[in-house]
């Protein structure tokens, strides 16, 4: 499966409300160097990440920076086990899924 097929998929809660789109997939490196999926980053606003702003280590108070952070406010991480089903029309989350912060440590 292609990562780009996962990206931009609509993300829907159990009761059908859309909470945003998949903008990234977070993996963790295991002992053998394999990259295992830990969760998906969902952004309720723009369909695609714009200049990687929501997680870039930008700290200079550039006006552009503040505008782009605003554009990306509210993106969050969903653990992979919280994903219930993948359909052609979107990605369905489980009941009571967790919303974690999306910024990279």
């Amino acid at each position: 499966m292609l990562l780009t097929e996962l990206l931009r998929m609509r993300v829907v809660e159990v009761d059908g409300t859309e909470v945003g789109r998949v903008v990234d997939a977070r993996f963790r490196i295991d002992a053998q160097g394999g990259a295992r999926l830990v969760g998906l980053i969902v952004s309720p606003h723009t369909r695609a990440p714009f200049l990687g702003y929501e997680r870039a280590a930008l700290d200079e108070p550039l006006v552009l920076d503040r505008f782009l952070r605003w554009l990306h406010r509210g993106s969050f991480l969903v653990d992979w086990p919280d994903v219930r089903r993948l359909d052609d029309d979107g990605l369905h989350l489980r009941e009571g899924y967790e919303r974690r912060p999306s910024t990279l440590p």
Partner: protein
Amino acid sequence: MIPRPHPEPGRLVDAEFQVLDRQVLDRNGEPVVTVDDVEITDIPRGVELDPDADAPVIENLLSGSAVLGTRLFGGRPPESRWQRIRWSHVTEIGTAVELNTTADRLDASWTERWVRNHLIGRIPGGRHAPD
């Protein structure tokens, strides 16, 4: 400095932000390709996923006109034309993706080798360093 065998265990990697559209360098630092897409384990569609099953992994880095073309202009690239670089070749994810092998040994560099052998390599002076 022997290149690390693979990225540091425990480290988190955001595929779109840190892998997709990143420059891939071979063991000698020579550019090979840019990551046009990432292949992960297939996720079944329309089926209840088992939360305890093993999560998907990154299997290959993909590149080439078929993959990039469909990404830019839509459609789905025929799997036969995916140029794959196995994820096990990746040693580091930094401002570029570094590999533990040389460009010439990857099938992803066949166009470079074709142009080298049929065109540029044939022009006098093509094979030695600028003096």
